[in-house]
């Protein structure tokens, strides 16, 4: 189903949920918490240092959600609104904890998806700009091994903050582009650039992992 249609359905389902929350429906609240909490903590971990800090941030976020629920206008999905609250609290907490900005966050503006060295140089008489060697297809089942999945998890966690936030929400949590732009205060183009760079870095890690484990 295309994203705008999925989003329309979610927004419609949201309004029923928001009404239930406003009316004090505990089951609705616990259901929501059950669905989102794990993902919110994982998301918050992209900003703060520790699991404990992430848990704290998310609990504070739930409190803020409950305080603000009467004012929620439903212009975006409930999830994206909650994610935005988590992001803001997490960023504030990170500044407070004086979490150092990793060197990897200082990126050049023209980060390439694939290093230029993987392609033939301009001096090649026939295939300048084409792959110097074809990438190795990844064995289908191998991606699903626990080991590989752990590598993907770690590769995502090692990304610079902005890239990690976008790929975590888009590819892991399955949020729409609109939700991510709303939650992180990004333009559509910026969101896409971050997603592109994030996916490219993770892909590089996976390729290296398969390369390394070849007999």
């Amino acid at each position, binding site marked *: 189903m295309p994203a705008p249609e999925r989003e329309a359905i979610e927004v419609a389902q949201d309004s029923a949920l928001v009404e239930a929350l406003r009316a004090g429906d505990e089951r609705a609240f*616990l259901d929501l*918490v059950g*669905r989102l*909490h794990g993902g919110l903590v994982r998301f918050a971990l992209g900003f703060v240092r520790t699991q404990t800090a992430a848990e704290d941030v998310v*609990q504070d976020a739930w409190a803020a959600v409950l305080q603000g*629920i009467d004012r929620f206008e439903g212009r975006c999905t409930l999830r994206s609104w909650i994610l935005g609250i988590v992001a803001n609290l997490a960023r504030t907490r990170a500044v407070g904890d004086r979490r150092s900005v990793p060197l990897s966050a200082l990126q050049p503006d023209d980060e390439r998806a694939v290093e230029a060295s993987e392609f033939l140089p301009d001096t090649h008489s026939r295939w300048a700009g084409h792959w110097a060697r074809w990438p190795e297809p*990844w064995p289908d089942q191998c*991606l*699903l091994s626990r080991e590989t999945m752990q590598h993907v998890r770690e590769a995502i966690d090692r990304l610079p903050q902005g890239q990690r936030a976008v790929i975590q929400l888009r590819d892991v949590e399955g949020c729409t582009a609109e939700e991510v732009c709303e939650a992180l205060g990004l333009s559509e183009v910026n969101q896409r650039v971050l997603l592109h760079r994030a996916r490219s870095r993770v892909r590089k890690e996976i390729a290296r992992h398969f390369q390394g484990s070849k007999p």
Partner: protein
Amino acid sequence: MSRALPEDLDCIVAVEQVTDYIEGAMPLQARTRFEQHLCYCPACMIYLRQIKAQIGVSALLAEHKPPPEEVTRKLLQFFRASRRG
């Protein structure tokens, strides 16, 4: 000369378009040229498949664990308090 026609993509350019392509954020002409490139470039087709496979695996990382008991209890207290006020 490295390509038959000026509008043909080089791989180094094509790999930068992969995200826009998967997102459906390309106008028809650009999308056609990208797909054209895939038709004569098995290497870039492999690359695109890798990215798609990676996206598929990423979705499996989503966490569905509900919070621990004591957190749930605390949140329920927040909820009741917020509805009272």
